[in-house]
């Protein structure tokens, strides 16, 4: 309920450009396009331009996504923008999508309040924008997939099984090691091969071992397929329920959260997720620069046909290309100097001038670039209006709008020059250099709150650059180095990974990566075998609760309440509960102090705790069987910790004195015959025997007293 309220508020605060549903006839197919990635992977490039507008083969990413949606028959698209929404809007209004002849009506929903995909979908629900099944994509999907078959399957499933299936995810088959397979996005999926139902979904990044819940294979499903040869296209067909589910579960931030949540709670909520695997069509999602490079080269190599440059699907006059042998694409008014060679897979935008004796291969060059003589470009991605002077060499790097590279500069692989940067002359940028006009420590002032750890290393790395560092950008250079090349090796690693993706150095794991994998692992391991692990988890929870109680002096009543709720949450029986509680409390001093306590210290540490928590025990130990269970737990504990054996008598004495355990039960327990050898040994403990003797005597005395 709280979430619903929050979403409403969010919607109210936004410009609220949602269309009135009553106004037009119900359109057959709608799409929700999220033109924001809600992370900073493309910083500093995306500081100047939102990610959705980054040019892929000289066409903005979002145009590919919209073309895909239009080609697949979508008639109404909601574009949700947050970061730099005005620019996205301006771009789209100029494009063919906003012409009245466009078969796909594009509507904008902008709000600065979106923090995640979850927020967007909650807003979709709050404004009730979708009326039937819709397609959910992000603004950086390049695909020529025809969704109709998958949509048909999806609809049929929903018809057959009363809306059980809420989502169909689209995957592309591609074997591991494929260059368009993003390491960050690698997944392992278990599916029911008969119905294409997703049974288990797990990201594999940084994991060496995968765990699958046992019940996956115990269920009545005949064939379970476990697949690692799939590429997530980030295209999903969703039913309106998806938006509702996001509203109901306000902690869902990403689609991953959603999928995981749905799979874990499948039995409770009864919702299912299905998948559709395509082999023929292309589909990829650009999540880092490595993927950017891979997808760009796939476009140039015509894998995404018919979305190839010479098709000019954006219908922009400046974007007409001719295609010739070896995948050379040339725009209008391109001039090529004497002796220059375009080897293969080259795209040159309109109005670009290339000097003489250049060698260009596997590159994309934007519009109106000026390239000097004897330039070598291999795997270079130059955006519009880039100036390259003579004798420059650029390998596998990105040079953004209006940047300038002066004479004799050499860019080693994976460099990034963001817009309007000037470098040179005569310097060599080492591998992975990132230069931007925005100083790296500008970060804190920024009020954009995409929570990403990239901000953290920026702070450590405070190199207060007043002017431009001539050593980094050359004597005529303009721009700040976004990280040091040599002094802070780790930082560099992290930075490069956030921009280029982990495949550059796949062995190393950055912080964010391990966070991610942990997040994905935890719920899975819990689901793996619930009966066994629940007790373990419960025990940890109880321990945590008690620790907190100890530190913050929480009253026993409240502790009881908390433990009770835990007990219900994990569905623990009273017997196990008793055992766990005794065990936890007895282990408590060991946890707190150190594992090798001698029995004397141990007892002195335990005593105050026992006194404190007496009401706790009293609350749970009521019947004779409870007493016995507690005793068994105590016995088990002391059997495990041989060195502490001697204090068992004292502990029992305390329990007795605090009136937690009754003497009858203790005697009863002691006299039990069917115990193990070790148990017998324990009972031979002198102090224990003395204690028992004392107890017996006391009993006799009291009974004598009774008789008197």
């Amino acid at each position: 309920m709280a979430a619903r309220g929050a979403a409403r508020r969010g919607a109210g605060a936004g410009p609220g450009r949602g269309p009135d549903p009553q106004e037009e006839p119900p359109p057959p197919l709608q799409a929700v396009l999220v033109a924001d990635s809600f992370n900073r992977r493309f910083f500093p490039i995306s500081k100047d331009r939102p990610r959705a507008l980054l040019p892929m083969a000289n066409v903005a990413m979002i145009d590919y996504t919209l073309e895909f949606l239009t080609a697949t028959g979508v008639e109404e698209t909601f574009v949700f923008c947050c970061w730099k929404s005005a620019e996205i809007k301006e771009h789209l209004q100029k494009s063919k999508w906003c012409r009245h002849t466009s078969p796909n009506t594009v509507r904008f929903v902008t709000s600065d309040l979106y923090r995640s995909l979850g927020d967007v979908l909650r807003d979709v629900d709050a404004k009730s924008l979708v009326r039937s099944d819709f397609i959910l994509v992000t603004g950086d999907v390049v695909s020529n997939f025809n969704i109709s078959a998958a949509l048909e399957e999806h609809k049929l499933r929903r018809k057959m099984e009363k809306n059980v299936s809420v989502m169909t995810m689209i995957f592309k088959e591609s074997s591991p090691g494929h260059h368009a397979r993003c390491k960050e996005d690698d997944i392992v999926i278990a599916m029911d091969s008969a119905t294409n139902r997703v049974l288990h979904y797990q990201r594999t990044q940084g994991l060496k071992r995968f765990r699958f819940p046992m019940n996956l294979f115990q269920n009545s499903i005949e064939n379970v397929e476990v697949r690692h040869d799939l590429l997530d296209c980030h295209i999903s067909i969703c039913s309106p329920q998806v938006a509702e589910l996001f509203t109901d579960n306000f902690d869902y931030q990403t689609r991953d959260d959603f999928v995981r949540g749905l799979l874990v709670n499948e039995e409770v909520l009864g919702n299912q997720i299905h998948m559709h695997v395509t082999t023929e069509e292309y589909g990829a999602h650009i999540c880092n620069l490595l993927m950017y490079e891979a997808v760009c080269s796939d476009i140039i190599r015509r894998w995404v046909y018919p979305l190839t440059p010479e098709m000019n699907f954006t219908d922009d006059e400046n974007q007409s290309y001719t295609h010739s042998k070896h995948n050379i694409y040339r725009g209008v008014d391109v001039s090529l100097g004497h002796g220059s060679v375009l080897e293969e897979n080259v795209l040159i935008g309109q109005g670009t001038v290339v000097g003489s004796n250049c060698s260009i291969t596997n590159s994309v060059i934007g519009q109106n670039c000026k390239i000097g003589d004897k330039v070598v470009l291999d795997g270079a991605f130059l955006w519009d209006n880039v100036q390259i002077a003579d004798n420059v060499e650029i390998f596998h790097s990105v040079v953004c709008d209006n940047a300038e590279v002066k004479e004799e500069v050499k860019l080693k692989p994976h460099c990034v020059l963001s817009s309007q940067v000037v470098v040179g002359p005569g310097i060599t940028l080492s591998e992975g250099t990132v230069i931007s006009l925005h100083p790296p420590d500008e970060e804190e002032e920024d009020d954009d709150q995409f929570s990403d750890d990239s901000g953290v290393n920026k702070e450590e790395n405070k190199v207060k650059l007043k002017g431009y560092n001539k050593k980094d950008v050359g004597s005529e250079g303009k721009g700040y180095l976004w990280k040091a090349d040599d002094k802070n090796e780790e930082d560099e690693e992290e930075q490069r990974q956030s921009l280029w993706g982990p495949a550059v150095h796949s062995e190393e794991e950055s912080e964010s990566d391990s966070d991610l994998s942990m997040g994905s692992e935890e719920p899975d391991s819990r689901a793996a075998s619930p009966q066994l692990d629940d007790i373990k988890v419960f025990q940890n929870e109880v321990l945590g609760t008690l620790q907190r109680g100890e530190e913050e002096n929480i009253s026993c009543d409240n502790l009881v309440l908390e433990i009770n709720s835990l007990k219900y949450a994990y569905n623990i029986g009273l017997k196990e509960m008793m055992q766990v509680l005794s065990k936890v409390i007895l282990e408590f001093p060991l946890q707190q102090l150190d594992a090798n306590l001698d029995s004397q210290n141990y007892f002195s540490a335990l005593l105050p705790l026992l006194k404190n928590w007496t009401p706790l025990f009293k609350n749970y130990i009521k019947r004779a069987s409870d007493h016995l269970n507690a005793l068994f737990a105590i016995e088990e504990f002391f059997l495990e910790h041989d060195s502490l054996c001697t204090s068992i008598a004292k502990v029992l004495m305390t329990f007795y004195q605090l009136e937690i355990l009754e003497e009858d039960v203790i005697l009863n327990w002691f006299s039990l015959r069917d115990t193990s050898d070790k148990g017998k040994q324990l009972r031979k403990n002198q102090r224990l025997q003395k204690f028992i003797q004392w107890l017996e005597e006391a009993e006799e005395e009291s009974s004598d007293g009774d008789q008197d």
Partner: protein
Amino acid sequence: MPGAAERGAELREQMEAFVARLRGGGGRPRSEDTARHTLALLRKIIAHGHWGSAGELMELIRAEGRRMAAAQPSETTVGNMVRRVLKVIREEYGRLRGRSEESDQQESLHKLLTSGGLNEDFNTSYPTLKANVIEAINELLIELEGTTDNIAMQALEHIHSNEVIMTIGYSRTVEAFLKEAARKRKFQVIVAECAPFCQGHEMAVRLSKENIETTVMSDAAIFAVMSRVNKVIIGTKTILANGALIAVSGTHTLALAAKHHSTPLIVCAPMFKLSPQFPNEEDSFHKFVSPQEVLPFTEGEILAKINVHCPVFDYVPPELITLFISNIGGNAPSYIYRLMSELYHPDDYEL
């Protein structure tokens, strides 16, 4: 006039849809369908567009035609139909101005040399022009309907009993041609499968349903089998101005093998596939599709290191072709230029 505005908007929408479909290149549209669609759209433009004189109309048609033709350069039919319509407008206009058809059609060599200022002006407006042009376009549409049958009717002149015919891929025209012959004669057909899309399989299935003895073979076997073949009959996408072909890839191999064995190569193609373009622009109407069929995307690592190409068409030079069979009869490649000048006005070669 809200009605006109609405119709205009509707027309624009249809245009965009057509262009988008051409661009998408999805499926394998029949050239005949494309031709009919183009004509229907042009007819609508003539009926609903804003124009006063023939000159304006031609300008309008040319502009729209350029857009449609540019959407998919390999679909030359679109451009051809636009040229046909332009020619129709010229003729109708000329007739209204009272010029005799005779003199217009038969331009003598002398006239060609002396007619320096032939550029007539198209500015006079005739109210009947619209109706006349639309009438002529309707005739053109009817002509389109009958092309395949017209070609098929000539089958018996070319296919004799017990002959072995080779063909490649799938062409509706060739299918109709062979089926027509099969009603009277018995012969054997060998179909090259035309990898990677293997349209040949479909062709073979369709032929065998008509009880024609059909064999499918791989493209690699073309040369080996050619010695047994009496005739090669193929379809084509486009006939170029010099009598060359733009046909499905694999055709060049077939044509060379036929030449080597001196087997006659017959091309069945309706007149609307005749395009006044020359092969020096061959790049522009080539079509490369996704390499998926050649080397699947699932291949993995190797794809980053190699370039895979998947061309759809082959260029077949005119000297490899024996005969063209069109809806108006059989012609040698060297005669194509003459047909061209009958179909299109020289000023319209460049749209």
